[in-house]
């Protein structure tokens, strides 16, 4: 029996959810491939994956790495609420979001949002909405560490 639409990825058939897939906040590298594997859904003709990644520079300054921290229980709760609301608004088949905390190196994924829906407009629009709200509302913060030894909270 297939699972119904979900905002918490679960193992389904041969698609096995990666460790921590149901969590909105993780303290280890995000498994993009593993999450995408559980982002598919038989009702969805479109799957959109957004990966927010660490740039090597910001406003002309060379970035060494980013350090993220969060109030994890509150962030988890808010991300779940954001996903649930988006899923209802756009009638998504799948909505997944995961944010990493701790040290994140250049080129690594800091946050991922995956949306799946019958048609692409809903998946694109919902994905943008979800990442915007996570960035603006979830109690997650980044500190930029620069190559010159300085640091700055975002």
């Amino acid at each position, binding site marked *: 029996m297939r699972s119904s639409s979900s905002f918490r990825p679960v193992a389904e058939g041969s698609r096995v959810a990666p460790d921590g897939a149901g969590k909105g906040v993780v303290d280890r590298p995000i498994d993009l491939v593993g999450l995408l594997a559980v982002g598919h859904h038989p009702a969805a003709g479109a799957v959109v994956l957004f990966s*927010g990644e660490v740039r090597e520079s910001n406003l002309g300054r060379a970035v060494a790495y980013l350090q*993220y921290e969060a*109030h994890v229980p*509150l962030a988890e709760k808010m991300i779940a609420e954001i996903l649930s609301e988006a899923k209802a608004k756009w009638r998504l088949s799948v909505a997944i979001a995961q944010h990493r905390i701790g040290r994140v190196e250049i080129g690594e994924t*800091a946050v991922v949002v995956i949306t799946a829906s019958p048609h692409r407009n809903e998946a694109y629009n919902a994905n943008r909405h979800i990442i915007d709200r996570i960035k603006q509302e979830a*109690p997650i*913060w980044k500190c930029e560490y620069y190559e010159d030894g300085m640091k700055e*909270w*975002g």
Partner: protein
Amino acid sequence: MTIHVYAGLKDYFLPEFELTEEVGNIDQLRACLLAINEQAAKLLAACRFAVADGFVDSTYKFKAHEIVIVVPPSSGG
């Protein structure tokens, strides 16, 4: 009352500390925090407050021995 602060607020306060003063609401808590470090004024003005993993607004009345989370503007992503 126990206060937890995050991110840039840690440049002005310890990550966790106790307030012995009687604080009834958010306005009083802001004033109390400013009295500890007035340099945090700009950041404190932009902060939200949470208790028991839920945000509270200016009408909320703090309970004795409550744990209060001072939440700076988000900067995830």
